[in-house]
């Protein structure tokens, strides 16, 4: 600890980074990360446990970039293709860093393990940065392999595109990683233990922005995107991804001295920004150790047991196991910063869908304006439902995973009942409040409380069904019993979410059909009530 808080003395000033310690730390970090992957694979109980979590993240990135490449191919020129590819890559990289790799950079255990060793903070910070850079390289490959290959097939692309795009995307992702490191370090320095919560909200906003941008590609059957892309507003070219795209575009046309100078300048700038990242992180490390040990001393009102006193929970549920699972998950969802960081972003896309619908005029009342004008009313509702599996999946992980002995050594006859309690915590703690907000916004927008109520009520029934279908994600191990490995939070449930999304699309079709007539709506309400009653009765 003393070392982390100590500034290099006059004697040690020359050794800003100690090579031996740096090598040892990087090797140890990478080794631990790889072993965590195998441990997570061995410990996973759900479908897809035959691959390590990191493979899922790589597959996810490959799939996203492949879809984007195919969607843009032949519709835009090389520069715009590069702009879209690099922007998406930088966005997904930033999200991955915050969601999956946050602990790689700001690991609270570091303070305990390294704090008392004769390691300079700058060496420690450099090792953590190298650790993050390794993942940046891996994800950059996954995110840009398809765009680089597909883009070289463009009329104005060619082999020069392949080379320049690879270099530009790597530089762009290294730059965004360094920026993320700086921002996270500063945030930790300023906000201390509240940093995780602030990051969760920032991430939600990033997901919203990303969702908004991605959907525009697909909602463009009239070549409007191509038209818009060729007439981009001037400010777009001041954004960092545009600098890299401009470099790719110009290099495709035949590189000259200007491009060579730009490349050299870029390398120098990249070096400077990484040096700044190491410096900022090294200055934040003492605060990191304080953040780790400065959990709020007393429970706040929001997460307080006052809200869910034991007798209330016991009155709600027939089984003590369900009540205990509910209370534990309820408190963790409100207090554990990591848990908050994992659950909020899933709802960010729903908020983005709603905002998009409202601003683009596609969130109309589906009862009165069926079809395209109301499409985002369904999408935003179903995105809330889609948050259920990711929230349930996240309840398997915890920084306090060693405390799972409490549940393991308890006389629990049916572990499924504890899992049911977790489901209720997700439904009442996350989904119901979000649907309540959605209801208020839609009722205001549609000027019809009844329609908004039926729409959101159906959504809650669908969320209950999604929870029931996803309960397998919680089986096999007690909740909060797994340490998170890189990629384990999002990757393994992608297939599950894809299947659920397909089922929701079918449900949306039936919903739209039912909304067209009073009898259909009444039937839908009955079906939703019956479904909710059956699921509530089954678990309660």
């Amino acid at each position: 600890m003393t070392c982390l808080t100590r500034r290099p003395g006059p004697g040690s000033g020359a050794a800003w980074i100690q090579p031996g310690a740096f090598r040892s730390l990087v090797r140890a970090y990478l080794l631990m990360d790889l072993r965590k992957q195998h441990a997570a694979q061995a410990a996973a109980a759900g479908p897809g446990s035959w691959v390590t979590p990191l493979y899922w993240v790589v597959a996810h990135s490959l799939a996203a970039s492949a879809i984007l490449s195919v969607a843009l191919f032949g519709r835009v020129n090389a520069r715009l293709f590069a702009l879209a590819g690099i922007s998406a890559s930088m966005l997904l990289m930033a999200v991955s860093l915050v969601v999956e790799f946050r602990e790689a950079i700001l690991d609270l255990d570091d303070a305990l393990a390294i704090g008392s060793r004769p390691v300079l903070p700058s060496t420690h910070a450099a090792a953590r940065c190298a650790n993050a850079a390794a993942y940046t390289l891996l994800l950059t490959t996954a995110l840009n392999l398809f765009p680089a290959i597909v883009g070289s097939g463009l009329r104005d692309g060619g082999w020069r595109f392949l080379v320049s795009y690879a270099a530009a995307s790597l530089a762009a992702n290294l730059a965004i990683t360094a920026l993320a490191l700086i921002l996270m370090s500063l945030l930790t320095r300023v906000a201390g233990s509240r940093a995780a919560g602030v990051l969760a909200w920032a991430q939600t906003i990033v997901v919203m922005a990303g969702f908004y941008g991605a959907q525009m590609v697909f909602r463009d059957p009239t070549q409007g995107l191509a038209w818009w892309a060729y007439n981009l507003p001037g400010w777009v070219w001041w954004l960092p991804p545009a600098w890299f795209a401009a470099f790719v575009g110009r290099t495709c046309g035949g590189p000259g001295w200007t491009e060579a100078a730009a490349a050299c300048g870029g390398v120098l700038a990249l070096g400077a920004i990484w040096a700044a990242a190491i410096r900022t992180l090294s200055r934040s490390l003492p605060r990191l150790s304080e953040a780790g040990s400065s959990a709020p001393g007393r429970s706040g009102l929001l997460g307080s047991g006052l809200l869910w006193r034991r007798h209330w929970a016991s009155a709600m549920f027939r089984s003590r196991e369900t009540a205990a699972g509910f209370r534990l998950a309820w408190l963790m969802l409100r207090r554990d910063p990591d848990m908050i960081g994992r659950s909020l972003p899933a709802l960010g896309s729903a908020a983005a869908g709603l905002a998009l619908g409202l601003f683009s005029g596609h969130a109309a009342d589906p009862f009165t304006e069926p079809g395209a004008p109301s499409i985002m009313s369904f999408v935003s509702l179903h995105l809330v439902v889609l948050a259920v599996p990711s929230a349930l999946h996240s309840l398997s992980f915890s920084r306090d995973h060693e405390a799972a002995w409490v549940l393991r050594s308890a006389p629990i006859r049916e572990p499924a009942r504890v899992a049911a309690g977790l489901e209720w915590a997700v439904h009442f703690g996350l989904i119901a409040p979000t649907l309540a907000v959605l209801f208020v916004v839609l009722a205001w927008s549609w000027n019809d409380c009844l329609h908004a109520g039926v729409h959101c009520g159906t959504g809650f029934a669908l969320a209950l069904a999604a929870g029931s279908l996803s309960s397998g994600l919680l089986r096999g191990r007690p909740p909060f019993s797994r340490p998170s490995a890189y990629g384990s939070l999002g990757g393994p449930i992608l297939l599950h979410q894809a299947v659920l999304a397909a089922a929701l699309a079918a449900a949306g079709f039936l919903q739209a059909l039912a909304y067209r007539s009073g009898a259909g709506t009444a039937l839908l309400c009955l079906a939703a009530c019956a479904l909710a009653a059956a699921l509530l009765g089954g678990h309660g």
Partner: protein
Amino acid sequence: MSAHEASVEVSSLSHAYGATQALRAVSFKLTAGEICGYVGPNGAGKSTTLKILSGLIRPASGTVRVCGFDVARDPVEVKARIGYVPESGAVYSTLTVLEFLSLVGELHGIPEGESRERLDHWLGLFGLVEASHAMLGSLSKGMRQRAVLVSALLHDPQVLLFDEPLTGLDVQAARVVKATLAGMARAGKVVLFSSHVLEVVERICGRIIMLDLGRIVLDEQACALRRRAGEAGLESLFQSLIGPS
């Protein structure tokens, strides 16, 4: 011995972690009112035995009966009758002391009113009343360990499985633990006390089992051992049993 009387019966218990054999045909019996010290060097298999007894891991072979119930066949019955303190002392750092203990009480099916009475008693005894609304993550290791100890005693278990229970405790709290264990033994409970600290084991345990490389190398009454050790002390005797390694 009646089916529900406090007892522990371990017979030919073996367990391995991959290629590492942690326990090799370990057998012993503990009867009501006994406080047994479970000692041995690092890696001897003490924590593994306690984890198997508390149903956290399944043994590779052998049988374990707690209060007449087979751990492999009736794990829930066994868990309802044991109070376990793990070596790690890990807790949910974002729960308060009261919430953590209330969760444990709920999992053990203690009615709420009774749970509150018991909590008042144990929190008072272990000096946790002031800290009862503090989050566990904000407390010192010793205070967290006190909460873990209360969680093991709250449901009035018949068998206490304590793995290094005095870690991080101050003198006062350690005295409370020792007095509590003695009281529990007098009330007919079984206590299996695993520790590295021979002085403590020697002072509070009536019987001592020593483990080395997964095998029992000694199982005797503490007074007989003291006589055998003579002036050289128990430490020398134990050292001679496990050798220089």
